[in-house]
């Protein structure tokens, strides 16, 4: 009888092992897929929230995600947990290429209108509008102000956080500001033309220190825990810089083609690659890639982090998705 029981146990174990192996094989096949850009990774299979037009930018509040559509000049609001659009769209201006949540407001840089508007997220009404006659794009918050990079004239304008009005003369950089971020000491600006990162002293708006070279076509920037993260579209890399010393940390990390946006929290740095159609996760301490990229959609242009996960906007799929990482 014991012998029979032992045989049955072995059969059961073998069956379970085979079933597990089969499941594993299926999962492996799913994760080993390759997208049209030739990037191998795990295909994203979750629900997609459709945003008509050309969604390009994201901003996350504690419970919502705002998505800007460059074609209609509107922002849509998505509930983070339900992954559904809520309420009506908000008209923000012409070609809002970037959004940011700061000082309790959603800020939109309207590239075509030369304006930066602030929207009260609860009423969804525009509460301030500042003229930044410089094709505004990059938005950062820090030192009690909003900082706006202007592409056409190469300026960085400071906006009062409370009134949304421009304060003082803009800082002129002889270059083309793309990404912009505020750290503990400086406002950091990526000059995509001259392939370097510049530092602005917030107290007087002057450029300080030597420009830091960061490869070719640097675009997005994020700062967390004293580390400046800069993406590099030409070489498809992410470069890390010590915020205090301005020195490069380690070697550049390779990600899928044309990284376009980056968001960093305590657990990871997340990078979306526009041509690669992928979302990469990097270790916040080492800057190394952890795991295969997630094949997130077509031409992702922005990434935002919420309690629910990592939100990505796919500009050519006309949708936004939330990826919930495990661990």
């Amino acid at each position, binding site marked *: 009888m014991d012998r029979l029981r032992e045989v049955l146990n072995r059969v059961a174990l073998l069956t379970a092992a085979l079933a597990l192996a089969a499941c594993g094989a299926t999962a492996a096949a799913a994760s080993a897929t390759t997208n049209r850009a030739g990037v191998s990774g795990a295909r994203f299979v979750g629900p997609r929230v459709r945003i008509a037009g050309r969604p*390009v930018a994201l901003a996350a509040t504690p419970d919502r995600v705002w998505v800007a559509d460059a074609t209609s000049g509107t922002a849509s609001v998505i509930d983070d947990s339900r992954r559904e659009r809520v309420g009506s769209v908000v008209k923000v201006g012409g070609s809002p*290429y*970037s959004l940011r949540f700061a000082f309790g407001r959603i800020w939109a840089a309207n*590239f075509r209108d030369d304006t930066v508007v602030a929207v009260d997220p609860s009423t969804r009404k525009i509460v301030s509008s500042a003229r930044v006659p410089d*094709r505004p*794009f990059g938005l950062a918050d820090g030192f009690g102000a909003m900082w706006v990079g202007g*592409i*056409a*004239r*190469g300026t960085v304008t400071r906006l009062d956080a409370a009134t949304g009005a421009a304060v003082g003369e803009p800082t002129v950089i*002889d270059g*083309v500001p*793309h990404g912009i971020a505020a750290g503990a000491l400086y406002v950091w600006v990526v000059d*995509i*033309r*001259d392939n370097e990162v510049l530092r602005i002293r917030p107290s007087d708006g002057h450029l300080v220190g030597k420009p830091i070279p960061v490869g*070719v*076509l640097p*675009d997005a920037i994020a700062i967390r825990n004293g580390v400046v993260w800069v993406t590099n*579209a*030409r070489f498809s890399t992410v470069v890390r810089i010590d915020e205090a010393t301005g020195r490069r940390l380690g070697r550049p990390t390779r990600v899928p*083609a*044309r990284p*376009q946006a980056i968001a960093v929290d305590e657990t990871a740095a997340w990078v979306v690659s*526009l*041509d690669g159609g992928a979302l990469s996760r990097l270790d916040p301490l080492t800057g190394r890639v952890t795991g295969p990229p997630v094949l997130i959609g077509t031409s992702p*242009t922005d990434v935002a982090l919420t309690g629910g996960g990592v939100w990505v906007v796919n*500009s050519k799929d006309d949708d936004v998705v939330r990826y919930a990482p495990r661990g």
Partner: protein
Amino acid sequence: MQLAFWTVVTAALVAFVIARRPYPNYDSYYALVWGREIARGHLPDYAVFRTPTPHPLFNAYTAVLSIAGARAVRVMTMLSVGMYVTLLLGVYRMVRLKISPVVAFVAVLVLLTRTDLLAFALRSMLDIPFLNLIVWAVVLELKRPRRGVAPLVLLGLAGLLRPEAWILSGLYWLWLGVAIVRPRLHLPGGDVSRARLASLMPLVALPPIIWISLDWWIAKDPLYSFVSTRDVAGALGRQKSLLESIALIPRFVGGSEPVVNALVGTLGLVLALYLLRSRMFMLVALALSGLLTYLLIAVGGLSVIERYLLLPSLVACIGVAFALTGWMQLTGQPRRAAIGLAVASLVVIGVRLPAYASTIREFNGESRQTSSRFAGIESILTAAPVAADARRCRPFLAPTHEAVPVIRYQLDLAKDEVVASTQLSRAATHGLQLLQTGYLDPISLTSISHVQRKPWTVFPLTNFTYRAENDAWIVYAKC
């Protein structure tokens, strides 16, 4: 009824031209630049970056137009649209003479769906006068067969616009001489004597002689047009192998609607040829000569583009018209077959209706976009800070070669004063830089093709300061 139709067509086109700022294409703008040089008593300077093929008659035409000064661009567009209407009229007359008024009328309607031809007219391209001259040469020949001088003069003029007409002139001259070799053929229009044939020879020989002589005189190279056209075709990647060129024929013959025009058109032509035989001789000869020159162009390493198959594509539109209405002039068994073809053609056209709609939308969008881009360039050149700098700042840096003739013509600048950034091997250190605002789109800025192209063609240059912008263009300067 006929008058009303032509009035409506003309009025609609004139309204369109008035509503949209004119936007001649690159070659036409260069013809305006060269025409002005000729009108001032100078030889046209062909040695420019990405030089378009010079066409002697077109340059003479723009030399006359340059009298209109700044308005020459609009006058040129109006005349081009006028020539488009006379082309339609010529096709109508040609088909009416050989087939029937109904087929002729439908052929005109089919041609009106050809947004590519309309675009050529609106962009003042020489293809429209070229086709006009050939179609009207055929009309004259059909009205009085073996007329000789008048068709040869028109074909000769066409041969000063595009060398393809040289072959047509030669073929026509041989056709006139057929009766001498084969007197028993009893061709319409009677015989042409050897003496008369010899007297017509200069009309065939003159266009190539004039063209080659002008090339020799102006560019110091008798084969300049051929060589430079081949070089530019290579630089723009427009050269194709013979097999590739053959594979492209259906698409090129179809023009803006390849399925209907190439498929139905060919079937219609086959039916017309079968039923009407010798009456289709001239049209088939036109199509075949067009195909022959297209293949010679491909073999010669010149640009393989749809414009070089315009004659066969024009004949294909007539084929579509015959497929739809040819049955009306037939009886018995052929009529039943023709009705079958007409029904099948209608089904194909019905299926392709969404494609027609999308082509028209596309054409409208592109036309609006290009027109506003040209309007934008004109307005930014006259914007106060730019106009002031334009008098003292050199060179004027255009983003690519395409804007160069526009700037040169609008500001009346010499060759060395306007440079395409793409032709430079490093960033300019001074001058007036014109950029398309679209280049500064934050997402486009990260495009890898930018650095592959040359960064100074995309970004504002170092130490250059912002001067002015509009929806399409932005200007920086360092004087």
